[in-house]
C-alpha cells in the first residue's frame, strides 16, 4: 500500500484522530477505488465526501448534460456548466477540492453493458441510481464479484441506506424481488434530503474500507425529515433469491 505523504498527513490530520480510524485507516482509504453510480443529488455528495476524506480513486458513471432542474440538489453541477456533460462538471469540481484524487469520468449511466467492467475496477460500489433497473444491475454485478454495495435511496423528505455484503447480508433483490410498480424517474426531492442519505452511505463505505466495519450490514436505515424519525429495520436473506442464494 502507498503510504501517506506529508501533504496528506496534514490534510487528514483531524479525521485520523477518530477512534478506530487513525493513519492506518487513512492509508487504506488512499489505496481504495470507489465506483459511484451517477453524480446527482445523492451520488454528487457521495463523491464529494469521499474525495474530501481522501479516497484514492473515484470512478464516476453519469450520462447526460447539466439542466436547470439539476441545480436544486446536484451540488457538483454548476450554473456555468448548463448544457455540458454532467460527469465532466463533477470531475472538475472534485479535482478542485482534492487535486491528489484520481478521477475517471464515464459519460454513461450504469447498464448491463458496462456494469461488469466498472464494478470489476472498484473495491466498493455506491449505488445512487434513480431507477431500479440500474440498481439491480449493480446488485447482480456486486454479488457476482463479491464487492460491497452501499445502497442509498431517497424520495421526498425520506431516505434509506443499507450495506450489502455479498455472501453475508441480504442483497438488493432479497429486499426487492421485483421492480416495484409505480416508481418514476422523476420524483420529489430536496438536496438536503438526498445529501443526508449520501453522508450515511459514505460513512458506511469509509468504515468498510478502513476496517472499522459497517453498521448497516443486514439492516436498513430509514429517516423521514418531515417527522425527523430515524429507525433501522432488520433485513432477511431470501433463501430462493435468484441473485444471491448461491453466493
Amino acid at each position, binding site marked *: 500500500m502507498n503510504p501517506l505523504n506529508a501533504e496528506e498527513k496534514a490534510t487528514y490530520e483531524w479525521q485520523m484522530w477518530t477512534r478506530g480510524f487513525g493513519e492506518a485507516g487513512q492509508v487504506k482509504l488512499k489505496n481504495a477505488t470507489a465506483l459511484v453510480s451517477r453524480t446527482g443529488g*445523492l451520488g454528487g455528495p457521495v463523491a464529494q465526501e469521499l474525495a474530501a476524506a481522501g479516497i484514492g480513486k473515484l470512478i464516476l458513471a453519469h450520462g447526460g448534460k447539466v439542466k436547470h432542474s439539476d441545480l436544486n440538489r446536484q451540488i457538483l453541477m454548476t450554473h456555468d456548466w448548463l448544457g455540458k456533460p454532467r460527469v465532466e462538471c463533477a470531475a472538475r469540481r472534485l479535482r478542485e477540492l482534492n487535486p491528489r484524487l484520481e478521477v475517471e469520468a464515464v459519460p454513461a449511466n450504469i447498464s448491463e453493458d458496462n456494469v461488469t467492467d466498472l464494478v470489476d475496477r472498484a473495491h466498493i460500489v455506491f449505488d445512487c441510481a434513480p431507477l*431500479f433497473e440500474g440498481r439491480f444491475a449493480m446488485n447482480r454485478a456486486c454479488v457476482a464479484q463479491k464487492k460491497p454495495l452501499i445502497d442509498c435511496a431517497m424520495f*421526498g423528505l425520506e431516505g434509506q441506506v443499507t450495506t450489502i455484503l455479498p455472501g453475508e447480508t441480504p442483497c438488493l433483490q432479497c429486499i*426487492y*424481488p421485483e421492480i*416495484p*410498480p409505480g416508481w418514476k424517474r422523476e420524483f420529489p426531492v430536496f438536496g438536503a434530503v*438526498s445529501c443526508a442519505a449520501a453522508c450515511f452511505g459514505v460513512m458506511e463505505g469509509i468504515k468498510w474500507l478502513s476496517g472499522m466495519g459497517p453498521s448497516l450490514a443486514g439492516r436498513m436505515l*430509514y429517516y423521514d425529515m418531515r417527522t425527523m*424519525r430515524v429507525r433501522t429495520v432488520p433485513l432477511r436473506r431470501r433463501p430462493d433469491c435468484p441473485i444471491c442464494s448461491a453466493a
Partner: protein
Amino acid sequence: MRVTVQYMGQLGHLAERSEESRELPEGASLLSLLEGLSAQYGEAFGHIVFTGENRIRPSMMVLVNDVPVEKTTPPVLRDGDQVTLLAAIAGG
C-alpha cells in the same frame, strides 16, 4: 380498537400524510387494514401495496411494532399496534 399507521415512500405521498390513527373492529387483520387503506387512497396506492392476486407485494416492507411481518401470513392486529408501511424507493 385503534392502530397507528405510518407511511413511507410513495404511500405517504399518495395518502397525503405521514401517519394516522385508524379505528378497526376488534380482531381485524393486517390484510383488512391494507384493503381498507387501498380502497380509500386509490388505485395507485393499492397497486403499490398489493399484487394482482391481492397478496402483499414482495417489494413492500410492512412492520408491526417495528418488527417486519411475514407477508405471506399477515397477522391479526391488536389495540395500540403501530403499523409501518415502507414502499420501495430509488430516488437519487
